C-alpha cells in the first residue's frame, strides 16, 4: 500500500526529475545507505568481510564500469581484467613513487591512468563493433598482462615479479597493508562504491548517457541526429575504464595486498565481470549490484554446502560452479535478457498495483 506514486506530489522540476520518483524507493535507498554505513561496520566479522562483502563491493565498481560500456554503449569488452591490472599497477607505482600522497587520491589517479589506457584500446571501436571489437579488447588483455609480467619497471624490479602494497593510513587509520582492519577496508570500499554508483547513475541520466544509449541502439541513426560517435565511444571507454581501474586499484590496494598480473588479473576475471553484468542486467545500475552479489555469493554458498556440508572435494565444487555459471548465463539470456534487474522491475510493477491485479 505504501509503494506507489499516488499522493506523492511533486512541486518543483527538481523533485520531478529526481532519481527515485517513488517515496518507497527513496526510503529504501536511504535505509540501505544507513545500514551500510552505520550498522554493517559494527557487526561485520572478518570472515564474511573478506569472503563476501569486500569482494562484492569491489566487483560492483568493476561491473558498473563494464555495464556502462556494454549495457549503455553496446561495446563488448573482454579486457576488463587487464584494465583492472592497469589500475593496480598504477596504484603500486604511484604509492611507491610518491609515499606522501593521499591514498584515496592515489586510487582516483589510478582510475585516471586506466581511463587513458582504455581510450587508447578503445580507438578501434570507431571502426569496428560487435565481436570484432571483442577480439580487439582481447589484445588489450593479453598484451597488458604480458607487459606487466615482463617489464621490470612496473614491479620495481622485485625479484618475485609481484607487487606488494605498502602500508598507508589516513586520519591515523590504517587503510592498506596487512595491518588494516577489515572495517577500515570495508568503509573505504563502501565510500568508493557509493560515490561511483551515484556518478554512474547520474551520468547515464544525463546528456552523456543519452548519447551512449543512442549509439547502442543504432549507431548510424545516432550519427545522423548529431551524436558525435568519436566523443561518445571514446568517452564511454574512458569512463568505463576509470571505474574498472579504480576497482583494480582497490582490489590490489586494500583487498589482495599483493598481486601478480598473470594470476590475479587473468582472462577468467574478465569473464567473471562480464557474467556479473549479463546476469545482473545489461544497462542497469541496480543490475551491476545484483550480478556482483550473486556471483560473489554463489561460490561461497556452494563451497559451504558441498565442501563443508557434504564433504565433497573442493575441486569438484569448483567445476560444478563453473558449470552452473555457464548454464545460468544461457538461461538468463534465453529467459530474461535484461537480467535480474528486470525481474526486480517486474516485481515493482506488481507491487505498485498490489493488492489489485490491474
Amino acid at each position, binding site marked *: 500500500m505504501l509503494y506507489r506514486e499516488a499522493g506523492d506530489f511533486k512541486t518543483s522540476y527538481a523533485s520531478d526529475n529526481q532519481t527515485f520518483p517513488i517515496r518507497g524507493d527513496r526510503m529504501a535507498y536511504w535505509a540501505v545507505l544507513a545500514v551500510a554505513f552505520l550498522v554493517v561496520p559494527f557487526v561485520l566479522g572478518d570472515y564474511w568481510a573478506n569472503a563476501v562483502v569486500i569482494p562484492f563491493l569491489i566487483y560492483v565498481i568493476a561491473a558498473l564500469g563494464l555495464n556502462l560500456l556494454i549495457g549503455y554503449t553496446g561495446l*563488448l569488452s573482454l579486457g576488463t581484467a587487464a584494465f583492472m591490472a592497469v589500475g593496480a599497477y598504477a596504484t603500486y607505482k604511484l604509492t611507491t613513487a610518491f609515499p606522501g600522497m593521499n591514498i584515496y587520491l592515489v586510487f582516483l589517479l589510478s582510475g585516471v591512468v586506466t581511463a587513458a589506457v582504455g581510450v587508447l584500446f578503445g580507438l578501434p571501436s570507431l571502426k569496428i563493433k560487435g565481436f570484432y571489437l571483442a*577480439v*580487439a579488447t582481447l*589484445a588489450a588483455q593479453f598484451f597488458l598482462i604480458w607487459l606487466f609480467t615482463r*617489464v621490470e619497471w612496473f614491479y620495481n624490479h622485485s625479484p618475485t615479479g609481484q607487487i606488494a602494497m605498502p602500508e598507508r593510513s589516513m586520519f591515523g587509520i590504517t587503510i592498506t597493508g596487512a595491518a588494516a582492519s577489515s572495517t577500515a577496508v570495508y568503509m573505504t570500499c563502501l565510500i568508493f562504491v557509493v560515490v561511483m554508483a551515484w556518478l554512474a547513475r547520474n551520468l547515464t541520466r544525463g546528456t552523456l548517457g543519452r548519447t551512449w544509449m543512442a549509439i547502442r541502439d543504432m549507431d*548510424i541513426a545516432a550519427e545522423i541526429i548529431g551524436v558525435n560517435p568519436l566523443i561518445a565511444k571514446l568517452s564511454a571507454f574512458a569512463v568505463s575504464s576509470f571505474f574498472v581501474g579504480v576497482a583494480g586499484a582497490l582490489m590490489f590496494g586494500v583487498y589482495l595486498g599483493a598481486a601478480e598480473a598473470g594470476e590475479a588479473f587473468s582472462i577468467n576475471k574478465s569473464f567473471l565481470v562480464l557474467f556479473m553484468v549479463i546476469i545482473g542486467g545489461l544497462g542497469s545500475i541496480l543490475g551491476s549490484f545484483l550480478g556482483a552479489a550473486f556471483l560473489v555469493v554463489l561460490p561461497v554458498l556452494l563451497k559451504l554446502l558441498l565442501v563443508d556440508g557434504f564433504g*565433497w572435494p573442493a575441486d*569438484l565444487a569448483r567445476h560444478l560452479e563453473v*558449470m552452473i555459471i555457464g548454464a545460468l548465463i544461457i538461461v538468463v*539470456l534465453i529467459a530474461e535478457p535484461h537480467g535480474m534487474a528486470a525481474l526486480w522491475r517486474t516485481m515493482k510493477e506488481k507491487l505498485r498495483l498490489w493488492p489489485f491485479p490491474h
Partner: protein
Amino acid sequence: MSDTVLFALEAALNGLTVGIMYSLVALGFVLIFKASGIFNFAQGVMALFAALTLVGIQTGQVPFSHLINAALGTNIHDFGFTLPAILSIPLTVGVMVLMALLIERLVLKHLVNQEPIILFMATIGLAYFLEGLGDIMWGAEVKPLDVGIPQGMSSTVDEFTYNLFGYGFYIDVLSLWALGIAAVLVTALVVFSQYTKQGRALRAVADDHQAALSVGISLRFIWVLTWSIAGIVALVAGIMWGSKSGVQFSLSLIALKALPVLILGGFTSIPGAIVGGLLIGVGEKLFDFFMQPIIGGATENWFAYMLALVFLLFRPQGLFGEKIIERV
C-alpha cells in the same frame, strides 16, 4: 646460408605446424559462423571436451565417477577395459553429434532472431558449461592421449635438411601428420559442401537464411549438421593438441588464438581460416625469434591479438572475408 637464416627458417617451419592447429580450430568457427551467423566462442572448449571424451572412452573411465563417488560414497573409476582408437573415435563423434543436437534443442532454438552479440555471449556461457562438464565427467587432471600417431622428431626431415644445409631441422612427426590430416579434412569439407545435397543446402543457408527456408530447407537440421561438423573438426583439433601436450585446460586457451586467426582470414572464408592460421603461426614464431633479444620472450601470448588489432583498423573484413556492408 648463415646460421640466423637457418634458425629463422626452422622457427618459421615450427610456426607453420602450430599454425595448422590454429587453423583447425578456426575452421570450426568459420563453419558455424557461415551457417548460422553465430560466433561460437565455445569452439576451443569443444575441442577440449572432445579430447577429454576420447581419452575417457579409450581408457574406459566411468563418466561422472568423481561426482558419483563424492555423492554416494562409492569408489568407482573405470569399467576395467580399454577401447582401441578405431572404436573410440566413432563413439566420440557420436557424443559430439549428440551435443550438437542438444545445443540446438536447448540453446539455439530459443535464441533465434536475437542480436548476434547476445548469441555470442550465450556461447561464452556454453564454453563455461562445457568446461565444467568436461572436468566433472572425466576429471581435471592432465591426461595423455595416444591414438597411434607417431611422436618425436622426424628423422627424415632432419637428415634431409642436414644434407641440404648442413643443419638438421627439428620437426615433430606429429606436426607432419597434423598437416596431412588438416589437408584431408579441408578436402573432405570442400567435397561435402560442393557435391552433396546436404552440402548444397548448407551453402544455401549460409547465403541467405530466409531464401533457404522458403525453398524448404530445414534450418534446424542444418544447424545440427553444422554444429556436428564443427564438433568433429573440434575433435580432430583436440586429438592433435592432445597428442602433442596432453589433454588439459590450456588447450581451450590456446584455442582463443583462433579469434585473431579469423580476423586475419575473414569470418566467412574456409581458405581464410587455413591461411590465417598459418600466417599467425609463422608470424608469432618469427616475431618471437627476432624480438626476443630486444623486448624479451613469450610474445606469442599477445602477438596474434595485436596483429589482429592492426588488421582490424585497416581491413576489418580480413584477407578473404566478404566486405562488411552496413545497411540501415
